[in-house]
């Protein structure tokens, strides 16, 4: 019972569309089939009978025309003609009577001389007219045609009439009702099966779609791509799958640009509120454009980058002459997305800002969802990142070069020694010296790179010890004397008779001195002068490197201490360098509690001074002197 109820429910809800529709179709079909068959059968019967009546009428009329009036002389001939006619035309009764209603000739000889029967009187009594009628007779539903025609002879009114009764052969049609029903049933069933087969395929597809959708209606939005239908790919299924693919793509694009839509809504609702205030202060440029090339909204950062006046907040058109060519180009890019709300496009470019500085910017633009005639753009200032990337790239290039230079000498001189082609002791000694010096140079360079690496990750630590400055400074000068001599540079070491011992990291302090003196020699032209000096006070010691080199523009005094940064001076660029020496030196001195200062002008040489405070554990020069005494 339950199953029947369920089936009925399913049928009512059309969940099993193919089967229920099929059953309904069969019911309608059977009823229609019966009606059509009966109707066809009856129609054919009527048509057939009508045709027979017409034929009988014509024949009877012809008989009346050719028969002579019944007289004694013509009686045998008339009787014979009647018999022949009856035999050939399925005529059951045939008689001729005169005006006195007496039968003068008949198929049945006993009727001759008898008065006309009552049944025949049902025909029209009009003696001059032709009369016909059809009557049911018998219990089997057979029908008869009653006919009466006058015998008209050569314009003389006939005094005799022929009465005839024909059997109508309606029930003897070629096809009976069951036959008709069978024929129509076969043809109809074939047609039904053909149509049903076609429809069922579609119903099946629709059914699968419905099943997919009804499986978990609440999560359709989240898994729209899962609504694809596998298996047989008919036209409906293919169309459905295409629809799902397009919808999924749209859904993805919509989610991508939801952020810009939300921004637009928020701004339009609370332009004077907290959000507008936040928008005005964020370090990201935000611009809303209308399709008439006017700015609906622009925050302070965007106006600074685009070079627009600060107080021009409403409706500045970027076609005005006050907007730079760069600004117009960027605005054209942004406005190009006004009719495309589903795609955010990014471009990296440069622009000269209102403050005269060049900005490297990333512009992200998209049309808004709700108002197709507007678009929003976000402008990110990536100048620092671009500079850092460029500096890092340059650093890698420079480090490669710096590493290869000492390595070249080490390899070449080692091969020279091992070749055995040079046996002069002086040459051999020189080779060893070069290899030693270049190995130390390489070692220092690696120390620098390690230091900068430690700076990057913040793991630089000092290994504290008592450091004697005198030998440290002397050794540094000795290391670079060869390079100085090759450039005819007068390298001087100006030290007081006594220097204090300081608490510090000897190796790292050596790096500081080497970097300062190495830079001085590198950037001092041939024939110049470099002097390393040291002064001690009660509180601190100052290690200075003074040169007569190319000097440094004051605007670069801060930048030269930044990681990987070098001055843009072409004289500086002519020399190789990694941009990490001064950074490392400053960091090491800072960790010792001191600082590095620079006094320099372009073309007037430079003086770098590292000042390191003396700690409680450090003995001053005065104490040393006393101890020595």
């Amino acid at each position, binding site marked *: 019972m339950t199953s029947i109820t369920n089936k009925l429910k399913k049928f009512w809800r059309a969940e099993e569309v193919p089967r229920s529709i099929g059953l309904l179709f069969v019911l309608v079909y059977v009823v229609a089939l019966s009606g059509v068959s009966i109707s066809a059968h009856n129609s054919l019967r009527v048509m057939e009978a009508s045709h027979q009546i017409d034929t009988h009428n014509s024949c009877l009329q012809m008989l009346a025309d050719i028969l002579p009036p019944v007289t004694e002389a013509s009686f045998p001939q008339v009787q014979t003609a009647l018999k022949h006619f009856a035999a050939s035309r399925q005529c059951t009764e045939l008689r001729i009577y005169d005006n006195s209603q007496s039968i003068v000739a008949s198929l049945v000889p006993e009727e001759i001389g008898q008065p006309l029967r009552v049944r025949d009187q049902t025909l029209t009594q009009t003696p001059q007219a032709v009369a016909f009628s059809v009557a049911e007779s018998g219990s089997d539903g057979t029908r008869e045609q009653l006919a009466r025609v006058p015998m008209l002879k050569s314009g003389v009114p006939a005094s005799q009439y022929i009465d005839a009764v024909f059997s109508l052969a309606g029930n003897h049609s070629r096809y009976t009702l069951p036959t008709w029903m069978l024929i129509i049933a076969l043809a109809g069933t074939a047609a039904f099966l053909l149509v049903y087969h076609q429809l069922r395929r579609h119903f099946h597809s629709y059914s699968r779609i419905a099943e997919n959708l009804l499986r978990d209606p609440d999560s359709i939005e989240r898994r729209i791509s899962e609504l694809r239908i596998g298996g047989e790919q008919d036209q409906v299924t293919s169309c459905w799958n295409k629809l799902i693919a397009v919808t999924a793509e749209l859904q993805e694009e919509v989610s991508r640009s939801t952020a810009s839509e939300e921004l637009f809504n928020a701004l339009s609702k609370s332009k004077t509120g907290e959000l507008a205030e936040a928008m005005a202060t964020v370090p990201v440029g935000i611009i809303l454009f209308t399709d008439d090339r006017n700015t609906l909204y622009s925050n302070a950062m965007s106006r600074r980058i685009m070079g627009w006046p600060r107080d021009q907040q409403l409706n500045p058109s970027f076609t005005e002459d006050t907007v730079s060519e760069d600004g117009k180009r960027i605005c054209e890019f942004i406005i190009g997305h006004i009719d495309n709300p589903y795609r955010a496009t990014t471009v990296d470019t440069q622009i000269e800002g209102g403050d005269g500085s060049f900005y490297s910017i990333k512009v992200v633009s998209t049309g808004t969802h709700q108002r197709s005639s507007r678009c929003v753009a976000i402008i990110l200032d990536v100048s620092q990142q671009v500079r850092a990337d460029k500096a890092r790239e340059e650093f*890698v*290039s420079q480090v*490669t*070069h710096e590493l*290869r*230079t000492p*390595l*070249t*000498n*080490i*390899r*070449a*001189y080692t*091969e*020279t020694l091992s*070749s055995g*082609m*040079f046996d002069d002791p002086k*040459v051999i000694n*020189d080779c060893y010296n*070069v290899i030693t010096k*270049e190995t130390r140079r390489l070692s220092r360079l690696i120390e620098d790179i390690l230091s900068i690496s430690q700076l990057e990750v913040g793991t630089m630590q000092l290994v504290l010890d008592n450091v004697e400055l005198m030998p440290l400074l002397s050794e540094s000068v000795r290391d670079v004397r060869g390079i100085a001599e*090759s450039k005819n540079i007068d390298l001087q070491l100006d030290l007081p008779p006594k220097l204090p011992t300081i608490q510090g990291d000897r190796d790292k302090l050596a790096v500081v001195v080497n970097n300062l003196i190495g830079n001085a020699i590198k950037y001092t032209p041939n024939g110049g002068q470099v002097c390393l000096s040291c002064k001690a006070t009660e509180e601190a010691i100052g290690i200075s490197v003074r040169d007569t080199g190319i000097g440094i523009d004051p605007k670069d005094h801060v930048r030269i201490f930044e990681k990987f940064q070098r001055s843009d001076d072409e004289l500086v660029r*002519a*020399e*190789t360098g990694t941009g990490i020496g001064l950074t490392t030196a400053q960091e090491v001195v800072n960790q010792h509690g001191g600082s590095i200062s620079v006094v320099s002008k372009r073309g007037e040489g430079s003086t770098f001074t590292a000042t390191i405070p003396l700690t409680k554990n450090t003995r001053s020069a005065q104490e040393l002197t006393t101890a020595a005494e």
Partner: protein
Amino acid sequence: MARILVAEDDAHVIRLMSMWLTRSGHDVHEARNGNEAKAILTDHEIDLLVTDVNMPQCDGIQLIQWLRNEANSEIPVITLSARCDQAKLTEHLASVNVTIHAKPFSPSRLSAEIEQKLLAAGKA
């Protein structure tokens, strides 16, 4: 004996090349930068140029361009480079018939290359 110009800002490399080439019987001229090299190329008849790429004042690329375009000289040229963009450099210099040796280099191989170039130029 051939006249060879070595243009290099590293004194150690110049000295080393001089040792090897002099031992092979060549006459070696030395330049510490591109401008010095131009002066020597102008004043002397040089059979082969060995030049560093990174040099102060006038670098190796500028020197080679000057040599081919302004001095109209087709003498063999070998460059020494410690740069990391060797492939780009090779592509750049291929059109002017210049051979590139990456640093660090082998002096014996460089000497052999020089002899081969001189032989091809008929200066050996």
